């Protein structure tokens, strides 16, 4: 029999509801796994073991509650998602001691669904990075190869989920920060449509890009988490009001869609038009093993009856530049609140107000965060706004138009998540531009505000590390991604346990 921590979230739920195990047992199993792996992974910034066990005990006393979709489920949160009464550091020295007195809406929804929050996960400082090396509290490691990055910025969450420390986690995706680590760590990650999940309580990076989304070990598990956190929130003005779509929306039952995909994959894929953006597939620098695994996955789709359609996203080549201009501009303003007045790191003994701000902020933020803030200040400064910020926003419109065109012919698009499998630590050190280009395949979707699902499709022939495929969809059509993703997941061989932890 498998260890409890190895169960999928869906299996663990069945075990809880049938009383094969209790919330306490499940939580203890995760805690044990955490202790066994955390030294090597450093996936977590704060452990909430005591609170989690106390909560599990209380839950067990009142028995399993089937109407609460995550009852008794040990989960984790990326440490840029506020959790009342627990440190929320954003992996920054700036917020080393910050304890929010409010919950992020997504965290509150997990809690009211009965979830147990076991830990807060490591990330790149303020979610800026694609390796988790930019954490002020030390990098996380990839459970498949401890010398390699787990991806980022939700690297701690992806590593923890892949390692079995929890049954799922919430991350955030501004330019690929859920999908990239999911792909590099061999788990499943969903970046929802912009406006789908409340951003209230997510420490903002790029407000017009950020979305909270789930990471889990299966597509169905992702769907279960997603179903809990999705939906309008009056506290977030950018939250989409689905009742304002009288013309109708695609299917909105996510768990059912994923289950249907897994149950009858051929039926789910038959006749499905899957677009292949040539700008991704023909990208220079796409590693042969990634291309090979992803093409094999396409063949699986095709054999099951999907129709593969070549499509163009002609403005894709501008995506990275447009993304870094706009997200850095927003980040610069979003991070202006960290001034050492009301919370956060404060420099001692400043001579005047300006040096007080300057020294607090310069000491509180790491180099990558400072770089982005300065880039943001530059592109918005007098004389440059039109050439950079406004121009990028125009490119953004053109890119979205590209997607709308491609997605009018196809229900979804498929492409690799990254050009390569996990890379060694230090690989992009001192070359921020090289690091930015690691987001080549993911930032496009954030510019367009569309949903994307990353799922593992095998281990690279050369690296023996996970390769992820990305399915991209129409606005609010996450169900189509989950259905097709679950079908594909059923048809490709599972990765098995992470090699470095065996």
């Amino acid at each position, binding site marked *: 029999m498998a260890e409890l921590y190895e169960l999928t979230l869906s299996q663990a739920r069945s075990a809880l509801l049938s009383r094969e195990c209790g919330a306490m047992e499940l939580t203890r199993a995760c805690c044990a796994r955490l202790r066994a792996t955390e030294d090597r992974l450093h996936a977590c910034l704060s452990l909430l073991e005591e609170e989690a066990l106390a909560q599990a005990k209380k839950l067990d006393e009142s028995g399993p509650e089937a109407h609460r979709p995550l009852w008794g489920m040990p989960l984790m949160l990326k440490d840029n998602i506020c959790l009342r009464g627990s440190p929320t550091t954003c992996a920054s020295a700036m917020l080393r001691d910050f304890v929010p007195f409010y919950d992020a809406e997504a965290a509150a929804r997990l809690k009211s669904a009965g979830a147990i929050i076991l830990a807060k996960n490591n990330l790149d400082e303020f979610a800026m990075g694609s390796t988790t090396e930019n954490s002020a509290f030390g990098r996380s490691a990839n459970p498949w190869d401890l010398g390699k990055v787990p991806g980022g910025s939700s690297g701690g969450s992806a590593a923890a989920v892949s390692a079995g420390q929890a049954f799922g986690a919430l991350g955030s995706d501004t330019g690929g920060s859920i999908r990239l680590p999911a792909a590099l760590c061999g788990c499943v990650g969903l970046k929802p449509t912009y406006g789908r999940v409340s951003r209230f309580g997510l420490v903002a990076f790029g407000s*017009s890009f950020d979305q909270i989304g789930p990471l889990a070990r299966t597509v169905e598990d992702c769907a279960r988490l997603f179903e809990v956190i999705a939906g309008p929130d009056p506290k977030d003005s950018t*939250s*989409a009001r689905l009742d304002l779509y009288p013309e109708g929306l695609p299917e909105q039952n996510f768990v059912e869609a994923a289950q249907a995909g897994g149950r009858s994959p051929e039926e789910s894929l038959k006749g499905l038009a899957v677009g292949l953006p040539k700008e991704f597939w023909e990208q220079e620098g796409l590693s042969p093993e990634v291309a090979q695994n992803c093409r094999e996955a396409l063949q699986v789709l095709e054999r099951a009856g999907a129709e593969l359609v070549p499509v163009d996203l002609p403005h894709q080549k501008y995506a990275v530049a447009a993304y870094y201009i706009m997200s850095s501009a927003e980040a610069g303003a979003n991070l202006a609140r960290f001034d050492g*007045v009301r919370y956060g790191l404060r420099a001692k003994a400043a*001579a005047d107000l300006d040096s007080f701000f300057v020294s607090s902020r310069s000491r509180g933020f790491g180099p990558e965060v400072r770089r982005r*803030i300065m880039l943001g*200040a*530059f592109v918005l400064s007098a004389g440059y706004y039109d050439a950079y910020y406004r121009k990028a926003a125009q490119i953004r419109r053109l890119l979205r138009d590209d997607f709308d065109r491609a997605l009018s012919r196809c229900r979804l698009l498929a492409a690799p998540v990254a050009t390569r499998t996990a890379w060694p630590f230090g690989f992009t050190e001192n070359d921020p531009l090289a690091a930015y280009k690691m987001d080549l395949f993911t930032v496009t979707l954030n*510019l367009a505000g569309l949903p994307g699902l990353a799922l593992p499709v095998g281990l690279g022939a050369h690296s023996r590390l996970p390769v992820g495929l990305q399915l991209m969809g129409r606005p609010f059509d996450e169900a189509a991604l989950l259905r097709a993703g679950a079908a594909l997941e059923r048809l490709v061989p599972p990765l098995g346990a992470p090699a470095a932890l065996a």
Partner: protein
Amino acid sequence: MSVSKATVLRAGRLARLSLDEGAGLEDFAGQMAGIVEYMDILNQADTCGVEPMFSPMSRTAPPVQDEPATAGAGQPCPREDILRNAPEQADGLFVVPRIL
């Protein structure tokens, strides 16, 4: 365009960030120059007449009623919560260096 050290310093001043003089500034300016140079790829795109898209926001709720909140965020919090994370406070106020 190329980014000079002066430009980098100016951005730093606007953002209230210091750059260590010497090597730190050189590195930073070099990296910024590289990034900005890369961003000039946008000049190749014809965006004449294109309406900028500042956000992919879709249909959202209209402005809310002017009613005091009864619970949750948006309602005044106990002062101890507001001040809980303050590096320095006195008599219910945040303390900052004397402003001249």
